[in-house]
């Protein structure tokens, strides 16, 4: 039986009149990478900040590594690493000093130099945090979250503002953490990131989870296939639940005419298609 790292049941959070989270439930197993996906303002960060112990919930039950995060237990904080959406550094402390300083608060810290190497900041040890580039600061963020050697890591939009190469590098770090058996809760609004890294994703929209499952299953849940081809310079796109029959008919007609189906392709919906469909649907319902 897999152990549960995070259990969320009917979580609610209101700010005055506004209900930012309206009854969210999900569970994350140990060793799993779980992605919370959704547009800005969907309630992802509010949910994660409740799990991190930064905010108090208005309703529902939450357990993180067996603790209620609202109790702000020191043991829980020593087993969790947090990458916040916005970085917080002492601008005049060097990379090495910052990593060593924050590491000292943990019972079993990782070696600072090893942590710096893990996130790819070798050669920047003596650079002050204020002089690092945006992407390097994000890596320092990750180093400060990892220096305590946590079991559970929260990553709130860890690659926002990265160039493609830096994103790939960050993905490799996250995959290697998964390889070490760490549990990771990732929030992102990049679909490819969620698809590439997560064992399971939940799509959040307007404070509710609108879909949940492994990225591949989520994409295949939508039953239709997209068949497209060129006809006299026009692109024809057909959706079908049974591509076998449709293709048989199309190719049969083409052969009978003695023409060809130029640029014929059959594609499965990607997570992006599912995401756009689901989030659009809910916008429609709200109106």
């Amino acid at each position: 039986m897999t152990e549960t790292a995070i259990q969320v049941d009917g979580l609610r959070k209101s700010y005055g009149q506004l209900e930012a989270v309206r009854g969210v439930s999900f569970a994350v197993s140990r060793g799993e990478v779980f992605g919370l996906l959704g547009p800005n303002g969907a309630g992802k960060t509010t949910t994660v900040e409740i799990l991190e112990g930064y905010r108090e919930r208005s309703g529902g039950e939450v357990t993180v590594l067996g603790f209620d995060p609202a109790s702000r237990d020191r043991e829980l904080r020593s087993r969790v690493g947090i990458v916040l959406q916005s970085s917080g550094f002492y601008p005049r402390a060097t990379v090495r000093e910052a990593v060593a300083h924050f590491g000292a608060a943990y019972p079993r810290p990782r070696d600072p130099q090893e942590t710096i190497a893990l996130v790819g900041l070798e050669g920047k040890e003596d650079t002050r945090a204020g002089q690092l580039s945006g992407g390097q600061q994000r890596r320092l963020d990750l180093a400060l979250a990892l220096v305590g050697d946590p079991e559970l890591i929260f990553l709130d939009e860890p690659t926002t503002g990265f160039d493609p190469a830096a994103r790939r590098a960050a993905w490799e770090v996250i995959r290697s953490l998964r390889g070490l058996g760490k549990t990771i809760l990732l929030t992102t609004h990049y679909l490819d990131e969620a698809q590439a890294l997560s064992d399971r994703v939940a799509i959040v929209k307007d404070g509710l989870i609108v879909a949940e499952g492994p990225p591949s299953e989520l994409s295949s849940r939508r039953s239709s296939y997209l068949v497209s081809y060129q006809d006299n310079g026009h692109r024809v796109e057909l959706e079908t639940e049974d591509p076998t029959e449709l293709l048989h008919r199309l190719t049969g007609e083409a052969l009978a005419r003695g023409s060809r189906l130029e640029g014929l392709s059959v594609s499965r919906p990607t997570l992006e298609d599912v995401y756009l469909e689901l989030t659009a649907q809910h916008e429609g319902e709200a109106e």
Partner: protein
Amino acid sequence: MSTAVLTWRQFRFERKLFWRNPSAAFFNFTLPFLFLILIASVFGADRKELNTLIPGIAGMSVLGTTFTALAYTFVFNREQGILKRIRGTPMPPLAYFGGVIASAVANAAVQVTLIVVIGHVFYDVSWPQDYLELVVFVVLGVIAFGSLGIAFANAIPNFDAAAAYVNAVFLPVIFISGVFYSTDSMPRLLKAIAVALPLKHVIDGLSGAIVTGTGIGGHLTALAVVAGWAVAGLFLTVRYFRWD
């Protein structure tokens, strides 16, 4: 690591970073002396005026190194997200506050010492008459001003506004509290305000310690007022502290 060790580490870390900002460190240390030298020479201060000025500048130093410095530090660290980051780690808040405040105390102690030494060496003001009273008023002043500074940081919206907020308190307070001249000849209303605030009482206590040697017994009211502000400052800090 224990809270005590982490407090010490935080203190060491704060000291290191303090000296990495040389211009701030320089002004922090020289401003009181600049005031002292300028006022003493421009007004050709006599013995009686110097006996007012030295404890006054010492009191201003305690205010500047604690109230002003901690208000800036906490607004900056809140805006930078440093406070939020610390809150997400197992660092005990007590160790963090302890280290930061100890760093401010170190600055206050160094400045008061330098002012007493400069006063004696260059202006022929006597060595302190009552060291116990000196320490008691510096320590109580640090607690009152320091906690009021951290509490005040909660009211300051962002770092850009911090200088305006802090100076709106710091400047009027030093002018009415007898830093540069005796409060005896001030208008009654200003005097009443000064008497209600803690700085005048810290200066009275320092004056007793350095100049007159009347002893703590002669300044029990001053002690009570400063202690009252210390309690108020600690309450406001704990009650309204904002981590982000």
